């Protein structure tokens, strides 16, 4: 079976449209974050802990369902944990800080949680404790996380520059940043909270994006040998077409499993699954439209090293095929 029989779409022709579209999405995302702020989950913002004791065994999902009815998205990313020994029937609920709380009314969120639990009719309960809790992700973790990401991207940049062309490295890193920003934009559009799970999702799509882009660039590198007289735009376009089947199949299979997680994974994993969903679509799009476009822009009219003389040992064999 083959999805594309000798695909020959002119992707590179659309590069300005693609860059403009991405820019619009990213700017809209930035504007949304600027005006409304990224909503932060309890991991990042801190909030309130309420510990309740039920008279009989009460599953955490019923507590979570009750808490998720809270207005203003308080209950969206509530952390609900069993607390103490199983026989004690205690549950710990951690909800994010809301506007009401930050203006100084400390007990309001705790009251709201207790009211919601009472209303949900899941059995008689007593409040064992309520406390203010700070963010789990502190300044240090944030700083180190950013630093780690910057170093990781710099490492990728250096490796691709070494193995391919510098312009390719710029394209790949730009595409990865693009996916990161687009994902953040969509998280802001749909008001998903930043949680540790979402961070895990963002890390994953970053890795996915890099992998996806290198596969295409690898094909470009191969074509550079066999298509010495063609210009870079054409070579890139051929490579994108040659790898199109693989790009679509890989993106498709990954999307399938992430979609299953999004639909059936439950409330807690929804943010993670949404991040992955957006990230994979954006990653595939940026591989086809953004990475190569940036690489071509960066390269400009400069000659490409390696197009005439083969650069690395494994590319020394003569090309076997001229595609399209």
């Amino acid at each position, binding site marked *: 079976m083959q999805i594309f029989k000798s695909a020959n779409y002119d992707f590179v022709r659309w590069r300005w449209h693609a860059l403009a579209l991405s820019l619009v999405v990213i700017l809209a995302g930035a504007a949304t974050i600027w005006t409304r702020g990224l909503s932060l989950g309890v991991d990042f913002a801190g909030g309130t802990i309420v510990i309740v004791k039920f008279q009989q065994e009460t599953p955490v999902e019923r507590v979570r369902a009750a808490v998720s009815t809270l207005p203003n998205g308080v209950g969206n990313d509530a952390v609900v944990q069993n*607390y103490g020994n199983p026989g004690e029937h205690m549950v710990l609920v951690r909800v994010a800080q809301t506007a009401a709380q930050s203006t100084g009314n400390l007990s309001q969120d705790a009251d709201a949680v207790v009211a919601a639990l009472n209303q949900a009719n899941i059995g008689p309960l007593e409040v064992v404790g309520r406390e203010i809790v700070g963010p789990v992700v502190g300044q240090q973790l944030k700083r180190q996380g950013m630093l780690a990401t910057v170093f990781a991207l710099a490492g990728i940049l250096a490796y691709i520059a070494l193995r391919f062309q510098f312009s390719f490295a710029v394209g790949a890193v730009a595409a990865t940043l693009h996916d990161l920003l687009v994902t953040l934009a969509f998280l802001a559009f749909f008001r998903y909270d930043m949680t540790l799970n979402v961070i895990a999702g963002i890390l994953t799509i970053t890795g996915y994006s890099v992998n996806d882009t290198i596969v295409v660039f*690898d094909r470009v590198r191969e074509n550079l040998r066999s298509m010495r007289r063609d210009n870079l735009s054409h070579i890139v376009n051929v490579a994108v077409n040659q790898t199109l089947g693989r790009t679509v199949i*890989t993106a498709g*299979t990954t999307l399938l499993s992430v979609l299953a997680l999004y639909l059936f994974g439950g409330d807690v994993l929804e943010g993670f699954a949404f991040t992955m969903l957006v990230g994979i679509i954006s990653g595939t799009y940026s591989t086809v439209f953004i990475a190569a476009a940036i690489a071509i822009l960066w390269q400009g009219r400069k000659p490409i090293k390696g197009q005439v003389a083969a650069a690395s040992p494994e590319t020394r064999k003569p090309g076997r095929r001229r595609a399209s």
Partner: protein
Amino acid sequence: MAAYKDLRWKTLTILAVVVIFAAVGVYPIVAQRFGLPAPSWLMAKQLQLGLDLKGGVHLVMRVNRDDALRISTEGVGEQLREALRTAGVSVGVINVTSPTTFRVEGVPQDRDAEFRRIAEEQTATNYERSSGVGGAYEFTMRPNIARSLREQTMVQAHDTIDRRVNELGVTEPNIATHGDDGDQLLVQLPGISDVARAKDIIQSTALLELKLVEGGPADTRENLLAPHGGQVPPDMEVVSGAADPSTGEAGTRFFLVRKVAAVNGSDLRSASVGLDENSQPAVMFSLKPDGARKFGQVTGSNLGRSLAIVLDDRVQSYPRIDGRITSEGRISGGFTQQEAGDLALKLRSGALPASMTYLEERVVGPTLGADSIRSGVTAALAGLALVVVFMVVFYRLSGINAIVAMIINLIILLGMMAYFGATMTLPGIAGFILTMGMGVDSNVLIFERIKEELAANRGARAAVAASFDRVFWTLFDTHVASLIAAAFLFQFGTGPIRGFATTLFVGLISNLFTSIFVSRTLFEFILSRRPANAQTVSI
């Protein structure tokens, strides 16, 4: 073809790898579930689940922030005393009356103006001075300074505990400030086996000071102070010895030491476990350049005297200074290997700015909630099933090849994680999902390439060989780039980022093995049973 002669060895290699990793990673899980016999060393290496997946211990502790304020007030009082002495102004006593106040009494009438000037210089930025009546002044820490010092103490305590817990090898703890007054810390640790040890490591202050010995050791305080007329000289203090390891009794010996430490914990660069001259476990430390300079000065000008190594206000040992020492030092004191290791860990992670009191200790369930984990597992299995079905429908027999590679990948990853004693958390699983995705991608790349090569009609064997040879470099580049990223994330990241990086790193390596070696061997195995000039494979 040469490749087909090695087939037996390749197959055996793959089988051996699968058996070994399955024994380490999969068998303990199965054995525990169904109560099968398994050696204890194997069970000890089992894969652990993190706080988000399995829950753990919930600790609430109060940080006694007044300790930090008192230390600061004492320091300023000491500084003032020193400045007054240099200026030749003798005063009666300088007493710390509360964490934020100290009192100076007996300022001579005729030196009052000079005292005020010196006090202004030394304390005005942080302390308010009450007007002196009868030569007595009270200095009170300014409220805004006290507030920011309290906040700073919490941040420091938080970061120190974070470092200690991480060094303990506990993966992805939750640490947050707690309580309406903001003076408590909430620490949730994943299900660790030795809670008492973890609590001890979190709690100990680990304040290290190296001070010159001026007198002692003596059996009683009175004997120690006899040469000084029963009074503690102003710039010295009495410190008791550490618990005698043989009797376990604390403070049976007393030392008179300089109040100002020659070197303290903040001058440390690193600390590790080593052996002392009697081959007993000891803690070796090295100093930062600044501390080394100070240390060299003190040791150089005090040859033959003793230097007390004071840990949390107890003299651990008091070696004689035999020569000028600069950057290296050793703390011995009858430690066991684990005690020495724990002390080194505490010293490396820095001293706590204040003491702590445990308020609460509870068992807690997974932060993701048992329900979410259940639905997450179901959804993940459904997703995996969809991928499997797609691969078989789209690539037929070759699709099964990809699934075999995926399963071997899973076994290797579980085995490696168990071997390293890693803890699995959601970010870890995310790293794993990424490698599974890349694994499928690797196979798709190979299969699509084989299709292209088959179209050239040079026979199935040649097509498979050419495809793997070419795709090898594609996979090499994608995997090495990701490995570099994973290494940086591991090195510079903490908590969840580190968890992600760990599984990604392990997964990428096992993925390279399965997609290049296993998958190729499977193809060759199938082709070896068909005529050498076969033109097609099921793809």
